């Protein structure tokens, strides 16, 4: 289907990736007093990111969902003597994440419109650079290019947390940087080992390269170090609550919306398809960590006094569900994981925006400072309700589809896995409803809340697309799952074939190939 991919003959993925940097250049050239520069930076950033989003819709329209492989391929020689090329392409796994990144960036820029008053230009530049890194990472089809973008994300995010963050921003920024870097460098070693083994870093080739079983285990551990920190999995999750609490709202949104998906994306793109035997060996280990994450972080979330921390811990729990889904190695599990990632990308991003709305007015995340907001802010209460229900997995919202599919997938592996993983849904409902009650219901007792204003038109503009998407994904999920069905199907088949008659997985494999909805 190459005719349908790059028919126009222009490198659409590179354009989406690098266009934000052009926006940065424009901003750098503006001269004038601070107010001019700031307003110019805001508009340039918004228009650039909107343009990028519109361009990325071309992918949405022109992508051929029946094809499992990479589409919109681009290839330029980069380090020819090492057989490393700057190559780009999207398949069913990555295309929706590219869209998620391009969607959330303008929303973040819009949400930071009035809040960020210091060094506006630098803030907007950081966001556009971050967009380049995120899109480049999801669109890269070369391992080295992927790695470059994967680590490159650290730089703008470090600055966003550290410059525009809360009181403990320095500690959080450095912790974020060092945690993720430690994991990443071990991924680099795994990358180099695979590179030398396969002689190339083209992901499409690596996907069909068989690595020796002994080597696979080490490679898996190297990748695990990186992706588990990024995801984050228990017990290396501790950077996330700190980073979330201190980051400015827009930073939290992109962190929860896209950056957390990078780890899961790494597992799906590299660990599972390239190292099938090691993945099977480590699956019980991954399940254990995921179940612990789901239950432990949900309980921790229940006890939080800080709204952002609560949502941060709930993110870890939700990502635990994602890893359960990925390592079931069946169509339902992996599709569910992907759907859950997308849903979480939208819903948790929206929840951080919801917190941001009242933070902008009262300047605190402390739950006890609020109460009875429903009286003064009815629209806000409604928006909050939608996303609270979505994160709980209420049927009809996006959260339901992903969790439901993961549970189906998990049931085929092990009843207890499904049961314990499903505990997250119950506990999630508990802490979210409890949070909602404390913030929205009751009577207003604080004086400063008596004059709090409801959502402004700008805030409606931020929330409207997210609400639409949440409901759309919940009511008609196949318009999204359609994109990754073929790719996931091919991946599961290949995984089963790679394991062949491996007896240790006899219980899982028939189910993986057999049940198709």
């Amino acid at each position, binding site marked *: 289907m190459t005719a349908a991919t790059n028919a126009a003959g222009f490198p659409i993925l590179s354009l989406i990736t690098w266009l934000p940097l052009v926006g940065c250049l424009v901003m750098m050239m503006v001269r004038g007093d601070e107010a001019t520069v700031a307003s110019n930076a805001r508009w340039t950033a918004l228009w650039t990111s909107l343009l990028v989003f519109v361009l990325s819709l071309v992918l949405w329209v022109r992508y051929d969902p029946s094809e499992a492989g990479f589409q919109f391929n681009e290839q330029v020689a980069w380090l020819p003597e090492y057989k490393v090329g700057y190559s780009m392409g999207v398949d069913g796994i990555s295309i929706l994440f590219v869209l998620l990144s391009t969607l959330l960036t303008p929303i973040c820029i819009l949400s930071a419109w009035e809040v960020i008053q210091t060094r506006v230009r630098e803030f907007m530049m950081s966001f556009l650079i971050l967009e380049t890194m995120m899109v480049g990472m999801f669109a890269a089809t070369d391992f080295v290019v992927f790695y470059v973008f994967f680590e490159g994300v650290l*730089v703008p995010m470090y600055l966003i947390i550290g410059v525009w963050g809360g009181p403990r921003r320095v500690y959080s920024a450095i912790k974020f940087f060092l945690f993720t870097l430690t994991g990443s460098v071990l991924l680099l070693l795994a990358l180099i080992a695979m590179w030398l083994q396969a002689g190339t870093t083209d992901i499409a080739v690596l996907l069909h390269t068989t690595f020796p079983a002994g080597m696979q285990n080490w490679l898996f551990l190297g990748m695990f170090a990186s992706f588990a920190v990024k995801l984050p999995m228990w017990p290396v999750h501790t950077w996330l609550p700190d980073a979330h609490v201190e980051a400015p709202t827009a930073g939290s949104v992109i962190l929860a919306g896209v950056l957390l998906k990078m780890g899961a994306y790494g597992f799906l793109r590299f660990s599972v398809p390239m190292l099938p035997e090691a993945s099977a060996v480590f699956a019980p280990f991954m399940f254990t960590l995921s179940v612990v994450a789901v239950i432990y972080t949900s309980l921790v979330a229940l006890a939080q006094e800080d709204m952002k921390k609560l949502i941060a811990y709930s993110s870890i729990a939700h990502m635990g569900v994602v890893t359960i889904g990925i390592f079931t190695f069946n169509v339902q599990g992996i599709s569910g994981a992907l759907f859950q990632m997308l849903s979480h990308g939208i819903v948790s991003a929206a929840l951080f925006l919801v917190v941001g709305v009242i933070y902008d007015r009262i300047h605190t995340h402390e739950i006890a400072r609020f109460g009875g907001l429903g009286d003064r802010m009815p629209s806000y209460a409604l928006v909050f309700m939608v996303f609270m229900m979505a994160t709980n997995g209420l049927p009809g919202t996006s959260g339901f589809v992903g969790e439901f599919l993961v549970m189906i997938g998990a049931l085929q592996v092990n009843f207890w896995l499904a049961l314990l993983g499903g505990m997250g849904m119950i506990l999630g409902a508990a802490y979210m409803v409890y949070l909602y009650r404390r913030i929205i219901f009751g009577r207003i007792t604080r004086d400063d809340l008596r004059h709090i204003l409801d959502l402004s038109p700008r805030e409606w503009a931020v929330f409207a697309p997210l609400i639409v998407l949440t409901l759309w994904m919940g009511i008609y999920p196949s318009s999204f799952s359609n994109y990754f069905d073929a790719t996931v199907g091919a991946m599961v088949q290949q995984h089963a074939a790679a394991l062949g008659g491996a007896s240790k997985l006899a219980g899982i494999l028939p189910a993986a190939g057999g049940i198709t909805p």
Partner: protein
Amino acid sequence: MNWTLALPEIVLSCIGMAILVFGVLRKQDSTLLSTMFTIGGFLIAGLLVLTRTSGFGFHGQFVADPFSAFNQILILSGAALSSILALDWNRTQGIARFEFPVLMLFSTVGMMIMAGASNLMTLYLGMELMSLALYVLAAFARDDLRSSEAGLKYFVLSGLASGLLLYGISLVYGFSGTMDLTALRELLVQPENASPGLVVGIVFVMVGLAFKVSAVPFHMWTPDVYEGSPTPVTAFFATAPKVAAMSLLLRVMGTSFASLVGAWQILVVIVSIASMLLGAFAAIGQTSIKRLMAYSSIGHMGYALIGLAVGTSDGVRGTLVYMVIYVFMTAGTLGCIMAMRRNGRAVEQIADLAGLGSNDPALAMAMAVFMFSLAGIPLMSGFFAKLYIFLASVQQGLWTLAIIGVLTSVVGAFYYIRVIKVMYFDPPAQRFDPRPPSLSFVVAATGLFTGFFFLLPAPVVAAAQAAANVLFR
């Protein structure tokens, strides 16, 4: 006797002497002019290096090949960048004398001779010429106690290292009967010729060279000399002499003693690991940015030595690429450090950088690029330097080196990003004085190289490959 092979060195020496005469005869201050002439001399020498033919000269004492050309060009670049940096600095610090560029020039001649040495005696002569000029340069701010201390310290310790090197050379000569690098290589192909005395000699030679690249445990002089010397001299110390000494290590170990790799590889591995560890951990507690850079350079030499420890053509290529990237990012960082001046006085505490991000966004951005690059964060050149090195070491199964290397780079990242934290997250301190254009030029040029190396790495890598192939014919 093919003396034209040494034409770049000869021409550069003649230019140096001419500048000396010119400086003495001219009555007014001629620092600016002699610096310009020196930089012109570097350019001419560079062109001559690029255009000369390959071969042996002076009865095998001197060699011109892609390997020596690669290193000589890099040495000249480092020296030229340092001379430009020195222009304004020496004037404002009141140490502007026309001898300064001349000393740099002669030191550079010594380094070029080192890079082109194919005989242990040539090697020694080149190194002494380099060191003699460096002693004076380190103590050039003669009214400053720290500078005098730096000069003296470097003189004493470097003299000791030279003695060790000379002793090693005499042992090698005594047990093999030759000082010619090619002859040594042919001799040592037969393992029975590798007598214990010769191996001891090799160790001494290695110690002498390790001192010059400031690898642990021969690094003790580095922080004090870096801190005490005038900053342009620090920039010079951190770039050109490192390249010269590293090229000698590669040539001597990689060709002459290549057959004895089993004997010296473990030493290089230990020195490399020790340098990486010390460079990473000792830098954490530093408050002076110049001392920080000293420990950083120790760490970087540890990474570069991995390429030697690997002992393959890929490893040597990795080291050469590493040196190129290292020279440019280090020169740029020291350029930024030189911009740290308040009311005409140089300040060099890390805390003095506070709020640079809002006081001088351009300088802060350049410094951030260098810091991320030194830390090895992708898209900056420093990442590619490490990538080539780790690639070579994993290829040869040296996993210990690779794992320690990546982990120490995380520790190193801690103090590099702390500098960025001070610049961007801390409340602004008093502004720095306006930057002189010469300094902005160096910072911009090296910053562009560091930030955009990823766009076109192929030429540098190809040149390094050609140079590395010479050693593994």
